[in-house]
């Protein structure tokens, strides 16, 4: 089954099938031993259960003059545009004022914090934060939540004190990708990971959980492509890697843009037929390359839905509903067979 796997794990509790708490490649040298926590969170619910339990958010529920400030990652990435599209649509439906701030470079943590501070000073009723590295927003989140305003953590990295984390778990997606690789390669051979920024939590989660799963469940060797979120670098390094190790037959990419770059790299190395490229995000470009049979598959987690749920959560928290710490959503595998369904969404 490469199909939708979400049914199996409706909550985060039973996802740790591999039993991996320590996902890093080299557990000893981790300074603070921080791992992806959302998936071990006990106060977690699958989003459909949660909606069923708490009921729908209606326009009437929204407090007067309700407004939301959003701090989001990379303005140049289609994924975040989609997610925030969801936020904006939902806000419009509910009559909520919304301001969305992006940082331009994903690693610009100081800018992330600056944006959050500015929005905080402008005084919003609730906030939605999606940082690439959670630490930069931790203090301000604590401060805002302490003052009684909800902070919803929409996907990305998990912020400790946020009211609620909403989204699919990247650790899970990475494991799904690993399982897919093991299945496609029959448990042998070599895979590679095209990483985003090696120092960014988001990229590390997507990389490390994949590697961990592969190493624990198969004899597959793993190579690295440290692409720094840059498709051009990914392209160059893929060609070089294939020169050094022509056995690579599956490449897991930290996002769709890297997938596109990696595919071009394979083209130069004459290896497009011998190597699967699998990425995640399900951006327009990513989906279209799946449709044209270039990238083998991408994982799609319905960013618009996450955006909408985040707005709902803001309202719910503001009116005093008891929302769980983590709300999980689905991740779906998109291949050539089912891509048509997603292109329309």
């Amino acid at each position, binding site marked *: 089954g490469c199909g939708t796997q979400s049914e199996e794990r409706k909550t985060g509790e039973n996802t740790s099938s591999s039993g991996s708490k320590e996902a890093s490649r080299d557990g000893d040298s981790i300074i603070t031993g921080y791992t992806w926590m959302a998936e071990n969170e006990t106060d977690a619910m699958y989003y459909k259960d949660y909606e069923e339990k708490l009921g729908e958010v209606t326009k009437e529920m929204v407090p007067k003059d309700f407004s939301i400030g959003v701090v989001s990652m990379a303005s140049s990435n289609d994924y975040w545009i989609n997610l925030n599209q969801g936020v904006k649509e939902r806000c419009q439906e509910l009559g909520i004022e919304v301001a969305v701030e992006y940082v331009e470079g994903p690693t610009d943590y100081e800018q992330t914090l*600056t944006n959050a501070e*500015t929005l905080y000073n*402008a005084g919003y009723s609730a906030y939605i934060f999606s940082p690439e590295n959670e*630490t930069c927003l931790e*203090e301000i989140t604590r401060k805002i939540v302490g003052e009684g305003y909800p902070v919803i953590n929409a996907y990305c990295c998990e912020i400790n004190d946020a009211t609620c984390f909403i989204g699919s778990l990247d650790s899970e997606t990475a494991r799904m990708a690993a399982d897919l690789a093991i299945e496609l390669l029959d448990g042998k051979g070599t895979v590679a990971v095209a990483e985003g920024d090696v*120092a960014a*939590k988001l990229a590390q989660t997507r990389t490390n959980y994949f590697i961990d799963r592969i190493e624990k469940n198969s004899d597959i060797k793993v190579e690295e492509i440290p692409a720094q979120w840059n498709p051009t670098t990914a392209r160059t390094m893929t060609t070089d890697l294939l020169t050094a190790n022509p056995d690579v037959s599956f490449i897991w990419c930290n996002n769709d843009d890297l997938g596109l770059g990696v595919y071009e790299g394979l083209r130069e190395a004459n290896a497009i037929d011998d190597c699967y490229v699998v990425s995640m995000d399900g951006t327009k470009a990513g989906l279209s390359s799946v449709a044209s049979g270039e990238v083998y598959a991408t994982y799609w987690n319905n960013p618009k839905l996450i955006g909408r749920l985040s707005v709902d959560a803001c309202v719910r928290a503001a009116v005093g509903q008891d929302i769980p710490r983590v709300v999980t959503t689905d991740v779906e595998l998109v291949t050539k067979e089912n891509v048509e369904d997603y292109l329309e969404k």
Partner: protein
Amino acid sequence: MMERKNYQAAASGQAIGIKKLLNNRLTGIVLVLICMIVVLSLATDSFLTPNNLLSIMNQASLKGILAIGMTFVIVGAGIDLSVGASMSICAMFLADFLVKYGFEKIWLAVLVCFLAGTACGLINGLLAAYLKLPEFLLTMGTMSIFRGFDYVYTNCQTIRGMDPRWINFWNAGIPWPAIFMMALAVAAWLVIKYTKYGRYVFAVGGNENASRLSGINTKKIKCVNYMVMGWCCALCAIVYVGRMSSAEAAAGDGFELTAIAAAAIGGASLAGGRGSIAGAVIGALILSVLSNGLTLLRVSSYYQTMFTGVIIVVAILIDRFTQKD
């Protein structure tokens, strides 16, 4: 007769005052800053609130601290692209020691932080001054080296888990970052203006050969410039770890360009020999007000990128036309 003369003298005195003001290198950018502040105060409700102004000061302080250090380097006709990475190394050591040895040994952490800054500065300084390597390339190289060291040391893990006392110190509502920056600015201004070393920075940047022939140890001066930059990186790291309560391996990515931009907006000439501390601080403020203002005005993010550029170009245009040479 007498009266008329006095009148003339007074008028000409005034004229000289205005002329002096117009000839002052800072007039142009102060004008830009004031314009921005006025426009934003009128256009938004939240700009002129104490909290927001405080935030701006705090945000400007990271840029400002680095820009002050960069002013030394640039005035001395150098350039340092490695500041972001140096800052990151300092932040990493600081955070690591704070976490490992606890808040009690904070002096140790700060010491190590400054040692790291000195080391980074010294590496750049020795290679640039004594081996005369081209500075742009050199510091581009050391930027990679420092960043790589950072990755290796932290294994790319964010260092977190600061003592609550540390966190409380920075979040008690006192604008420590701004205070640190202003203190540094005053100190740097005194050094630049009233010490021999300060004058030599300008001399070496203005005409290295003449300075050497006048008996200045130009190599030492150049080297010290980079060390000053290193100390500023260390101070910046303290503020950074204070603001973020953590240190990431990728911290400070791109700070070098911001610092250079702030110093240059403040009138530092990349050819050396010209620049001022006040200018660097104002440059940092302009950049911070700009980013704050665009957010408050809800300019869409694509247009924010564009406007940032437009404002920079407009700022240097105004600067250009408020002074003639």
